[in-house]
């Protein structure tokens, strides 16, 4: 249990000190208070859900792959087989305190309705995705002349499940467009360290390898 009680990596803790959990997962977990009810959309093997449950959070999951679901259920997690694109509509309004979409947005067919559904089902949404504006990505396309591949996104263009890549800048624009309020935004660099907060957006968009956003419903209609 001691491992979970350690400080989260927001204070600039090196990745090797974060224990068995991924940095972005620790960051997400830190955004959620104990006792909350959470839906993790695209929960994979249930790593994040396990972290959340260890912190006293009531977690549920949706996962597309049957193997992923069955592995989650075999860990005792409450996970159902489902598709973010088609199954979110079945959840009632305000069913959860938080809905998480971790590294999944880029793999959905309709990112915009998915995002809208996240904030209908949950009071808040936490969305993380790989930033296609990351300098290494730009460099590969600019100099290499081929679609970028990285350690975290090793698939080739023809077999990648990621069909809707965006940059941090693109995502911020989408949030504006559908009247979503950005409560908190963190960009993580290649080593999973948060990019300092006081830097301008274009730096994040260039040096953030992934973005993690805490979102809520916008106050005013557009």
């Amino acid at each position: 249990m001691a491992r979970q009680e350690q400080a989260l990596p927001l204070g600039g803790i090196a990745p090797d000190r974060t224990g068995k959990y991924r940095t972005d997962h620790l960051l997400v977990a830190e955004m959620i208070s104990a006792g909350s009810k959470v839906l993790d959309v695209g929960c994979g093997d249930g790593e994040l859900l396990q972290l959340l449950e260890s912190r006293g959070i009531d977690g549920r999951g949706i996962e597309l792959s049957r193997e992923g679901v069955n592995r989650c259920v075999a860990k005792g997690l409450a996970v159902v087989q489902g598709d973010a694109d088609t199954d979110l509509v079945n959840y009632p309004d305000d069913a959860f305190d938080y809905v998480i979409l971790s590294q999944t947005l880029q793999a959905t067919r309709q990112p915009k309705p998915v995002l809208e559904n996240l904030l209908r089902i949950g009071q808040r949404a936490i969305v993380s995705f790989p930033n296609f504006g990351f300098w290494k990505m730009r460099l590969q396309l600019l100099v290499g002349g081929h679609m970028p591949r990285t350690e975290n996104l090793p698939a080739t263009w023809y077999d990648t499940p990621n069909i809707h890549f965006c940059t941090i800048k693109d995502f911020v624009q989408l949030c504006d467009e559908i009247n979503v309020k950005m409560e908190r935004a963190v960009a993580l660099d290649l080593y999973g360290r948060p990019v300092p907060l006081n830097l301008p957006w274009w730096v994040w968009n260039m040096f953030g390898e992934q973005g993690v956003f805490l979102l809520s419903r916008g106050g005013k209609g557009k």
Partner: protein
Amino acid sequence: MTQLQSVSSPSIHSEDRAHEADHPTSPVAKFGIEQPLKLDCGVDLAPFQIAYQTYGELNADRSNAILICHALTLDQHVANMHPLTGKAGWWEIMVGPGRPLDTDRYFIICSNVIGGCMGSTGPASTNPATGKAWGLDFPIITIPDMVRAQAMLLDRLGIQTLLCVIGGSMGGMQVLQWTAAYPERVFSALPVACSTRHSAQNIAFHELGRQAVMADPDWHHGRYFERGTHPHRGLAVARMAGHITYLSDAALHRKFGRRMQDRELPTFSFDADFQVESYLRYQGSSFVERFDANSYLYLTRAMDYFDIAADHDGVLAEAFRGIKTRFCVVSFTSDWLFPTSESRALVHALNASSARVSFAEIETDRGHDAFLLDVPEFFDISRAFLESAGKARGLDGTGG
């Protein structure tokens, strides 16, 4: 008589079945006239009895009890030799020491459903008013009636809350009924290959089976006991039709293809030339030896009437509103009797009720009956779900 010649000479006699219906090989809980079973049809059934089997030990705080609900043609003999057929229990692959339903850890109960023919009161039992078998004088029973009887049995056994209720097919329907009727008594539920209501197609198949039984001249309007007959042929046809629905096209093809049975060439007759025919005839004939034809009518009827949403103004989610029970819904991809879509609809309703639910769809070509077969993924999921439920309920891991 060529078609069904293989079902004409049963080796288990009607008297054995009749004896088992009144005086089962299992422990029996008897309920007198002061404790009637209040049936949905309006009848108070009394006296009545429930035959059941248990495995493992009930712990000191009575928190490790698991109820298995059996399917249409099965019974309480889950993990012991069947008293009529002499065969192994129907779920020994799942229940036993070290198995997913670990008898070293859990106290497992399975009772014969009301309306059944293996010792719980049903149409094959003796009607105390006449001294003869109930036959069609037995009142129509429903899935909720079965569950109500099980709840009375648990009261008798001194078990307030079940760690889990588990069952497939008609057993799964009972699991869902348990959660809808007695949510506070069910800590976790594992409904497998089932639905919250019987579909039109399934009712149609059941009607086919019932008509086959009733068309058999040996049926005698359900009074075959008095005539010394049993509608073997009709019941065998019903079983054959039913059995096809428990399998899948792919499973039948893999198992039998178009292969011939003990011959090279067709006989140009209505003999069982094909292996699949021979197999079905065997399924029919072995079934009629152990099952009562009237019971088959009553139990299929109970399934037909099942519709949880209908009892809640047509809104399924209302049946589970505010429920604390942990669910694990399991379906099989090739099950066309209770297709995955039905389980998914259940999961959507449970989500809408904010229930804690897991849903695993298991890929297999073995059809509806997959829940009775060696499907390791199903075992792993059941085991983990029970472990997690046990942990949440504060069971220690002794013996695990």
